[in-house]
């Protein structure tokens, strides 16, 4: 059994649906009462105003059941069973490309950055113009460690690397 506020909501949706149905075919043989939308408005208006003033006013229950009888049951399906609102989630800000230089390194081979900890990485070394192989660097608890023999960021602060976070 629907409550009176639910019936009011159903009637509002039904009013729109009735007007759409009338506009789409009432004049071309479709069995739709072209005045149904207005009738729903007239009856629903009275019931809604009276309900807002006194929800227990005599006659409200009977008239709202009558109103429900004029409504489109399809409107009931999405007003009572579904509906509501969906709040879109705000995606987290993420970084997928981190350009660094030799000066950013903690020591000769270790680069510390919590943003890359635990991430799947690809590292492009501009100075040799290629991606590092997976055996040429390793992830550490604080960032990455470059394993290439002779790599020394302290001596070469102008090293230029780009760290890509894969599937951030």
């Amino acid at each position, binding site marked *: 059994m629907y409550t009176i506020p639910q019936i009011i909501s159903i009637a509002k949706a039904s009013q729109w649906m009735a007007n759409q149905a009338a506009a789409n075919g009432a004049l071309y043989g479709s069995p739709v009462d072209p*005045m149904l939308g207005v*009738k729903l408005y*007239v009856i629903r*208006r009275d*019931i809604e105003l*009276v309900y807002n003033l006194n929800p227990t*006013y005599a006659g409200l229950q009977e008239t709202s059941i009558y109103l429900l009888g004029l409504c489109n049951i399809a409107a009931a399906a999405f007003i009572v069973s579904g509906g509501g609102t969906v709040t879109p989630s705000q995606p987290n800000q993420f970084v997928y490309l981190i350009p660094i230089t030799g000066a950013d390194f903690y020591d000769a081979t270790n680069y510390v950055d919590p943003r890359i900890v635990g991430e799947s990485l690809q590292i492009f070394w501009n100075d040799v113009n290629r991606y590092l192989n997976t055996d040429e660097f390793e992830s550490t608890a604080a960032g990455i460690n470059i394993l290439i023999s002779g790599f020394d960021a302290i001596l070469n602060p102008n090293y230029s690397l780009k760290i890509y976070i894969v599937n951030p």
Partner: protein
Amino acid sequence: MTENFSASQTIGVPNTIILTDTSTGTFDPAITDRKVYITDVAGNYITANGYFTVPTSTDWPVADLTVSIACLDNDMALQIRVDWLDVTNVVLYTKTILFDFEMYGLMGSFALTQALSSKPNTIQDANYWNNRIILTVNLDDANNAVTIGNNQFISQSALDRSTYMLANQQLYF
């Protein structure tokens, strides 16, 4: 203090308007009394004691948050002015608001809907529905004239039409 008030009606009591003081800010201790002036579209002053052509007010004691005034014998659009006075009756604050009171119309229209639910075949009566729609449009018109247009004459004219239809239901419904 920012002076303000609201007006309402109770269903089942269409002859009475209820005013509520909704002023905000710190109450001004100089205020000792309130007076309510209600005027219709013809400029008459209306109180629970009747209509007056000279300024006539209803007292609204400061101690009372609300005041009920049984002054309506049909739906009306009314200018209501509330004056906040000091002990020498000097007006310290004043506020005027236009309202439409259509409880007679709402109750009459709802009664028609109740009758409709007991005589379902009426739903097919085109003449009945043409007049029901006119009645509803007049009531909506009266409300819109106040809330949108702030026009007492248009509102009262619409209420006069709805009042006539409900007073002569045998002609329309």
